[in-house]
């Protein structure tokens, strides 16, 4: 019996151990070219606007005593594709002094689209509705109305979001509004 047991144990030790699990690999390949921006920013005719490299970010300076700045930036479509655009405020400082501040889009003919509203120092709308940007050549204008109760500096940091219609693919440009 002892001999049989020893033999069985020896055979087990001699057998190779096979350890496997069902395993497969799918393959994903991503090609990521750097492409020219489809939409660019251009300076406006009111206030002071600084456009940064590649025309994809900007800083706008306006002063509160003037109630309306029309327009502070121009959004220009460079592609034969339609887009939708909107503004979304993502950070701010010292906006409590703003009694009224509205940042809105307009085109040349058919009205405006209110994007960001500040009333009595607080947001009443922080993200605007989607607004059409037709294929090139097309432009939309960004304007501001404002009223402040003190002479300080307020900063509003905003994303200009550019969406492919019927998709959830979008680009974010950074805009900074400095309101004195």
């Amino acid at each position: 019996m002892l001999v049989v047991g020893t033999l069985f144990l020896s055979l087990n030790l001699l057998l190779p151990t096979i350890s496997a699990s069902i395993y497969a690999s799918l393959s994903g390949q991503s090609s990521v070219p750097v492409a020219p921006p489809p939409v660019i920013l251009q300076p406006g005719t009111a206030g002071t606007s600084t456009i940064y490299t590649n025309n994809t970010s900007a800083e706008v300076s306006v002063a509160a005593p003037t109630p309306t700045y029309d327009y502070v930036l121009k959004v220009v479509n460079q592609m034969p594709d339609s887009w939708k655009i909107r503004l979304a405020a993502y950070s701010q400082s010292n906006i409590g002094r703003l009694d009224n501040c509205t940042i809105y889009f307009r085109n040349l003919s058919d009205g405006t689209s209110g994007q960001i509203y500040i009333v009595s120092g607080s947001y009443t709308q922080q993200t605007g509705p989607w607004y059409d940007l037709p294929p090139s050549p097309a432009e939309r204008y960004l304007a501001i109305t404002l009223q402040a109760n003190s002479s300080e500096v307020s900063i509003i940091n905003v994303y200009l979001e550019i969406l492919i219609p019927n998709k959830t693919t979008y680009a974010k440009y950074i805009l900074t509004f400095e309101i004195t």
Partner: protein
Amino acid sequence: MNIKSIKITKSMKFLVLLLLSLIVGMANAAIFYSLTVQPAVAITGAKVVFVSGNDFPTGSSLGSNSTWVSLALKAYPNVTLTYEQPVNISNTDTANHNFRLRHVTITPANGQPQVGNYTSISFVVQNTAGVAQGSFNYTTTGLNWNTASTMSYMTLPASASWIIYVETKAVAGANDVTADIQIAVDVV
């Protein structure tokens, strides 16, 4: 004819002995046995596959068995570009499966000046509800890539489809260059 009447010469005897020795030699074999393995190799469709999402970019392609996908993404200088749902990973099985993303290759290679055009290329695995389950990020330091670390295995429930969300960003002033990334999706 009587066989005993046949005369057997010495040379014939020697020939018979030689033939017998050859036969004995050939019959001398090692101790030998055969085990039998009979694998049945059925070709079945993969249970976990890629499925194109709502943001499947123009120019992308999906392999015929949905086990391979090529995504034609873009990056814009100084812009964050988001693809919320370029491609999904779908479990067509009635059992759960575990999967992970694993880096394979990326070009241009480290040290090439083109690498510095990129800020980040991020892949985020989201469940059906859009909740992030893990991320897989490529960033750069100077002219070198910080390649994504292999993810921990995630459990993809039976009949569920999860999202691969992608975000790209190039540096201000980036010029015409393309990064190619190969990623393996290991399925257990």
